[in-house]
């Protein structure tokens, strides 16, 4: 069984102990192939963010298995020592709000990631510029976040999520602040990037306008996932 991309097996997450314990994820199974964008849809409080946090190695799952890019990162316990480096090198994050660093211009917001990984400044900026160009915001490369429109900010944030060429990209409601035209553009970009960089992308959303764009969708309710294999759906 190939385990490129994302593979999650029987992943559970319990918050708290005893009477007050909340089982936020119950034996979740999921897989996303490289180059694929899947949607993760569920009502508020269903466990979407918890799943992204587990995958993103910022909280500890309770049990189960997670494999990213052919590496078992969790098997009833973390199998990777440096979770910080794992996040930096393997996972791209795109958040609901862009959360750009306000004192860095668009280029440096993106270039910061390769710089943190030790890439020389010039090379990191070149990579950032290439991505900003691909996302069609190169003309705003030297603007500070406060000078960018919401859509431009979100595109810069996406560029930041992609710049280290992570095999996995986790996007938490990336289109929430955008109108439907821009939301569709963003999903288009994510699909494009998934194809170009062979990245496995999970997009958490309950944004009705983008739901039809996913080829595959996981529904989540009370911590349990169901796959909806939608024939004939998908973004073109």
């Amino acid at each position: 069984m190939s385990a490129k991309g994302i593979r999650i097996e029987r992943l559970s997450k319990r918050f708290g102990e005893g009477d007050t314990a909340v089982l936020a994820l119950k034996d979740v199974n999921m897989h996303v192939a490289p180059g694929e964008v899947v949607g993760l849809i569920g009502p508020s409080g269903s466990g979407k963010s918890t799943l992204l946090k587990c995958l993103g190695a910022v909280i500890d799952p309770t049990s189960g298995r997670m494999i990213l890019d052919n590496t078992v990162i969790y098997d009833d316990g973390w199998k990777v020592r440096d979770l910080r480096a794992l996040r930096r090198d393997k996972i791209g994050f795109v958040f609901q709000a862009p959360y750009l660093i306000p004192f860095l211009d668009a280029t440096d917001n993106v270039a910061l990631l390769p710089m943190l990984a030790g890439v020389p400044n010039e090379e990191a900026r070149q990579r950032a510029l290439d991505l900003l160009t691909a996302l069609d915001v190169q003309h705003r490369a030297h603007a500070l976040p406060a000078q960018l429109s919401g859509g431009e900010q979100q595109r810069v944030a996406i560029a930041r999520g992609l710049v280290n060429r992570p095999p996995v990209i986790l996007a938490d409601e990336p289109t929430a602040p955008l109108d439907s035209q821009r939301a569709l553009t963003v999903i288009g970009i994510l699909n494009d990037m998934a194809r170009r960089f062979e990245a496995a992308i999970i997009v958490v959303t309950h944004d009705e306008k983008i739901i039809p764009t996913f080829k595959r969708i996981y529904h989540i309710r009370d911590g349990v996932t169901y796959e909806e294999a939608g024939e004939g759906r998908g973004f073109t």
Partner: protein
Amino acid sequence: MISLAGRDIMHAWGKFVFTGIGLGLLIGVTLTMAGVYRGMVDDATVLLDSSGADLWVVQKDTLGPYAESSSVPDDLWRSIRVMPGVAQAANATYLTMQVGKGDQDVRAMVVGIVAGEPGAPGWPPQLVAGRQITRGHYEAVADLAAGARLGDVLKIRRSHYTVVGLTRRMVSSNGDPMVFIPLKDAQEAQFLKDNDAILMQRRRTEANPAFNRPEVPGLLDAVIASQTGNSYVNAVLVRILPGFTSQEVAEPIRRWKRLTVYDRTQMEGILIGKLIATSARQIGMFLVILALVSAAIVAFIIYTLTMDKIREIAVLKLIGTRNRTIAWMILQQSLVLGVIGFVVGKISATFAAPLFPKYVLLVPIDSLLGFGAVLAICVLSSVVSIRMALRVDPAQAIG
């Protein structure tokens, strides 16, 4: 890697500059306070230097002549002059008082020096204008700080003195300018009784049958003369011969004359350890308070700056920034604030120092210590913010 702290500072430079200036003024006050203390020590040192004495012979068991009052007979110097190792011995009186100048008065230390013996201990070593005192009465050499000019007339008690010479930085340990006058005049000024008191005393003496004895002619006059005359001075200043140590010369004077003798080191100990000790503690208290206020300001501004960035710090952590990078960013900002503050403080202290009425002496070592203290304060003040930043949960960045 780019400097996160540097970028943030450039972005929020207004906050940094204004806080830095506020902090700088505080640091300026702190440096000036330290300068006031140094100035007092320097005043004391200048006082001892300018006296030209190696030993001070004062009344037994007193801390005279500067820190306590002391009186010794004014013929004592003759017997001290012939003691082994003594080069010169001269009477001196010191009295801090209001000296009239025109229709105003200034606080000054009036120094009585033996007239007609230039170069004796107690004499002003250098004049910036005019000449030394040559006549036995009613001439004065005054310090520029008293605001006197050549030819001015100063009023000390009931007598008038013409300023014939000027000195610079001849001050008491309090920073009061010195006014030198002939010893006889100074003795009179210090021990002078007013006319009524003299008359009253004369009447009491005349009424005393022990003194008023017609069978001994001249006795009453002699008694009255001895009562009204003033045959005391505050100290005898001694200069010792080369080849003698101050101990060698001081010891026989102590033993045989039953007097207290201080050498230069002891005198400095008295002036700095006792005379200005309270002021020094006072200043020390102020320094502590100013340090605490500065720390509070730095801590507060760094804390708010960090609070404003909690989200961004969570994102930075999520995307793999090391804790140490984040801590260093906050620490750098705190240090930059400190450096701006110190530069502003140093500049403002340098420009403000000459405007103070007392001597403010800014010494490089104080600046250095101050700089060290500022950096230390900045490091400590950033601890709270750094701890807060390190506790930020990267999961916070996700929904």
